[in-house]
């Protein structure tokens, strides 16, 4: 599908970020809190004003309406917002069965009845997994994940990791994943970057460089 290309992006914290994530590639991003990881993801999803160029495949960010861009470049925030009382209200009605939603929910450890549950009774971990489900039914070409497994027990973390790995393989999606979990970064065998002094660098001991410029 499409690669994610970021060129000379200025966010509130980071200056002149260059980054490329190929179609089907997994890139981990780590760094101290406050280093600007989440803000970088928000800027790529065009949720905060930022200067610079971003492409999804050969489509530039500014050349298409922002809602269309955000469907293609999907962001999973570390804390998800819920606007309907029931879980099902957060999934577009027409995709319910056609795109295998119940299979996706099952893989994340839910029965289809979860759609009738009330959001306020969900645990943090359940919210996190359901937020991933509602993002994936949009079929984004690029996944931006912010601490996607931070509140999960090992079983559910494994489920989420498997779902993301399969989605990446099947859809050839570019995945940029902010993760504090060093073992996860090593286990999932992606390219690893870290933020140091406001710059993206290969994580020490990561072995690979920025990919484009080894």
């Amino acid at each position: 599908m499409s690669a994610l290309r970021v060129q000379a992006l200025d966010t509130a914290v980071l200056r002149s970020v260059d980054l490329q994530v190929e179609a089907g590639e997994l890139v981990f991003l780590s760094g101290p809190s406050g280093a600007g990881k989440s803000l970088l993801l928000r800027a790529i999803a065009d949720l905060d004003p930022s200067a610079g160029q971003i492409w999804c495949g050969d489509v530039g960010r500014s050349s298409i309406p922002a809602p269309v861009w955000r469907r293609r470049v999907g962001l999973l925030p570390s804390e998800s917002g819920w606007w309907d009382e029931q879980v099902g209200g957060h999934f577009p009605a027409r995709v319910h069965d056609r795109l295998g939603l119940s299979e996706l929910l099952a893989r994340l450890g839910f029965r289809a009845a979860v759609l009738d549950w009330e959001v306020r009774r969900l645990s943090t971990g359940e919210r996190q997994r359901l937020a991933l489900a509602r993002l994936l039914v949009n079929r984004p070409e690029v996944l931006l994940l912010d601490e996607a497994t931070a509140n999960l027990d090992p079983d559910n973390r494994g489920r989420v990791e498997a779902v993301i790995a399969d989605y990446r393989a099947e859809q050839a999606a570019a995945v940029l994943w902010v993760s504090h979990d060093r073992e996860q970064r090593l286990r999932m065998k992606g390219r690893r970057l870290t933020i140091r002094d406001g710059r993206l660098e290969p994580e020490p001991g990561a072995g690979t460089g920025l990919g484009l410029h080894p």
Partner: protein
Amino acid sequence: MSLISLGSLDLALAAGLVLLLSALSWRHRLGVERRMLIAAARSTVQLVLLGLVLKVLFETTHPAPILLLALVMLSVAGWEVLARQQRRYRGLWGYGIGVLSMFLSSFSVTVLALTLMIRVEPWYQPQYLIPLLGMLLGNTMNGIAIALDGLTRQAHDARDRIEAQLMLGATWGEAIADIRRDALRSGLIPVVNAMATAGLVSLPGMMTGQILAGSPPMEAAKYQLLIMFLIAAGTGFGSVAALWIGSRRLFDERSRLRLDRLASGRR
């Protein structure tokens, strides 16, 4: 029936009740005496001034001073809307949204009523224009202030909810729709309630005034109905306009939620 003129002693007696209430509040530390007294003093000065101004205005039919008074009323209403916002829009928008939407609704509805319904000749005759505009401005001001405050306050509190929808590809209009609907409802509740209970629970102020001034009750009722419909329409259109401009301003051209366009909360 004829008009019974009020003497200063009659007014002083009524004012005495307010003083009594303030004393009670002061004695029991209820904390409203200061505000109550200031508001009572303000209304005394303002209404006496208005009475004097109207007395002069009613003798002229020159449009310039009448228009000037109308503009003064509008700009004061604009400040009042602004003062009631917990989270104001930064810059001119804070004042502009309220004034513009009040101008659109109150002025147009007033002119419509004067030319099409009451058919005053000329339409800017102050005896009709000023009271009518005052009624409309006063009510639209309340509706718009409540609606705008609801919009900005809720948008601020529901940032996660709004942005979650944006992240999944919603347009700004879809993402704010719930909150906008809610804000409109709270802005219109006072007017709807006033219409629903008019005549059963409360005698509306204007009808009371007309009856006290000696008008036949049926005439007073008809005028009250006219005014009430105008107020409902004016408040409704004004709140819709304010919410539309206000919610548009909460997002930029890339459908990003821009809470930085609101000043931080007061109080």
